[in-house]
């Protein structure tokens, strides 16, 4: 299916129309329960994102990057990930985390300023969140090479934004992946902006997906507001990667409905009109119309999942806020495998100082 859409010709994979009807030739086989799950995860993601913004405005959570508008890219793609696969996220991946089962408490705790939030629970194959743009990409490729070396039929998914494609690490990672046919799926969430810089100033190429051609593998541009298309493309790319077919670049064409982060003001560099145009393509509304058309949606379902999301979020906030800050020794013992003597001395000195302060 991916091969049918040539990014150089400007072709884009879309399965759900903006009105919410599915292309029967491309519609993936998902059960009613799975479709409802995708919808419910997108609703939960948006509610959790809005909650985080509220907490940030109240001073209860630090600067973070909102996911508003990215629900289909994140949930749709993550639905295609197997438990044995590995995910290298970037810093705007709330829906990915929720779909993969990362406790929401971790997400809030991380942006409240605790490394404990970035301690991914055992059994969940998610790499810890990092900030320097595109740097996770070579790591994802190396991880994928290691999976293959060990004979595991698993693959790696690496997420990043459109700005990342201008970084050297993007080139080095995709080139490595092509040369070594690493089992990795690159998902570029092209949300049109890197803070204030529009994608037209990141690249003179018509699409990001076409860059894959130069690295010797397939790239596909996908409607990033179409959860079905994101699911189908990711699933196909993962199957290909797991079976030795090498990497794929998926460009999720979407729009950042929020500011870049809570410290940003997007009205400085884009028009209201542009935002309004994109708000008509809302991924959640589109999916709701699709479910409704299939007889899978009604008001009681809507209120039930909203209530469940609210309960989940409130519990997570409570857990995160009642988690005590890490004790000083946590920062020292995790610097090296075994704490060196000068770090022991520094820790002892810090603890003395803290004791003096409390007297």
């Amino acid at each position, binding site marked *: 299916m991916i091969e049918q859409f040539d990014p150089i010709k400007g072709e884009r994979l879309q399965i759900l129309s903006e009105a919410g009807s599915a292309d029967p030739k491309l519609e993936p086989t998902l059960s009613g329960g799975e479709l409802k799950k995708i919808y419910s995860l997108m609703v939960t993601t948006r509610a959790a994102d809005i909650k985080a913004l509220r907490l940030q405005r109240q001073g209860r959570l630090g600067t973070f990057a909102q996911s508003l508008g990215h629900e289909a890219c994140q949930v749709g793609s993550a639905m295609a990930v197997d438990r044995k696969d*590995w995910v290298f996220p970037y810093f705007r991946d709330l829906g990915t985390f929720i779909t993969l089962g990362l406790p929401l408490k971790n997400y809030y705790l991380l942006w409240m300023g605790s*490394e*404990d939030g*970035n*301690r*991914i629970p*055992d059994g969940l194959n998610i*790499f*810890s969140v*990092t900030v*320097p743009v595109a*740097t996770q*990409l*070579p*790591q*994802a*490729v*190396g*991880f*994928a*090479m*290691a*999976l293959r*070396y*060990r004979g595991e039929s698993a693959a790696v998914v690496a997420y990043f934004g459109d700005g990342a494609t201008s970084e*050297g*690490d993007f080139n*080095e*990672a995709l*080139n*490595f992946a092509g*040369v*070594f046919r690493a089992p990795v799926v690159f998902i570029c969430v092209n949300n049109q902006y890197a803070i204030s810089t529009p994608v037209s100033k990141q690249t003179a190429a018509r699409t990001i997906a076409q860059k894959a051609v130069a690295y010797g593998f397939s790239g596909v541009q996908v409607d990033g507001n179409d959860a079905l298309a994101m699911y189908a493309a990711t699933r196909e790319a993962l199957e290909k990667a797991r079976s030795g077919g090498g990497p794929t670049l998926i460009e999720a064409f979407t729009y950042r409905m929020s500011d870049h982060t809570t410290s940003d003001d997007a009205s400085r560099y884009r028009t209201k009109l542009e935002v309004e145009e994109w708000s008509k393509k809302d991924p959640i509304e589109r999916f709701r119309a699709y479910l409704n058309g299939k007889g899978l949606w009604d008001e009681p379902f809507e209120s039930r999942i909203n209530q469940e999301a609210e309960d989940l979020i409130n519990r997570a906030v409570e857990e995160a806020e009642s988690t005590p800050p890490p004790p000083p020794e*946590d*920062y020292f013992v*995790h*610097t*090296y*495998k*075994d704490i*060196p*003597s*000068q*770090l022991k001395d520094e820790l002892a000195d810090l603890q003395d100082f803290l004791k003096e302060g409390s007297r």
Partner: protein
Amino acid sequence: MMLNMVQALNQALRQEMEKDPKVVLLGEDVGVDGGVFRVTEGLLEKFGPQRVIDTPLAESAIVGASIGMAAAGLRPVAEIQFMGFIYAAFDQVVSHAARLRNRSRGRYTAPLVIRTPYGAGVKALEHHSESTEALFCQIPGLKVVVPSTPYDAKGLLTASILDGDPVIFLEPTKLYRAGRQDVPEESYAVPLGQAKIVREGDDITIVAWGAMIPPCQKAAESVENGGVFPEILDLRTLSPWDRGAVLQSVKKTGRLLVVHEAPRTCGLGAEIAAHIAEKAIYDLKAPVGRVTGQDITVPYSKGEEYYYPGPERIIRGIKKIMES
């Protein structure tokens, strides 16, 4: 067996790869070519292209991929062809290899080794004579190791591969083939974090590492004729460095000279001098001295002697301290 440093390093790699299939090598020209200094010679033939990986010219991806491999449970040994090219990978080293353990609170770690030839004195091109170890010593989470003999090269590289943390392993180009030493055939580890007394003496402590050890030894031989007996400490691990050994020696001799080929300002010598000032200033009979590279770009071959500390500059440094 009498081996030079290149052969000793090769033996360490070969033996660790034989013992543990998780050990893999990657870098530019490490496979077919055996490395530009031949440190990895014969390993592709023995272990195959899955374990001895000739990579594209991409320092950041070499280190970045190594981080991913290490996090996935392998023990990658990456080669950066010259230290002067490591800066392209600096972000991966500093922002990720060093931090992964703390960032993930121990869930993910990066036990990898980055081998790279370093140092001046071999009349090389620009960017082939760097000695910027202090850049890495400043970064919490990294270990920095420098051997000065074939025996230590083998044992320290073995220890570095077995270590649970990322190690920057600096190989003094000048000493690669400078001499042979009896190196045990069997595998052994020289513990990281421990300095070695190269020469015992009572009058002045000289702290040095890597390619500075031989000129320090020459200088010591020379001043002994004048009745000054230096104690030479080879630091071997620069981070975390053996504070205890340096302190103990300085308390005995009452004098300290630090010798390094890196530029003086913010070099590791400054940290060693500061530590001694904090812990043992009243044991000192004379001000601490430093003989170092200059605060200039390493000159091309014609100007190398202006930069590079040799025995004469070290003798001068010793005399200055002894006479003060």
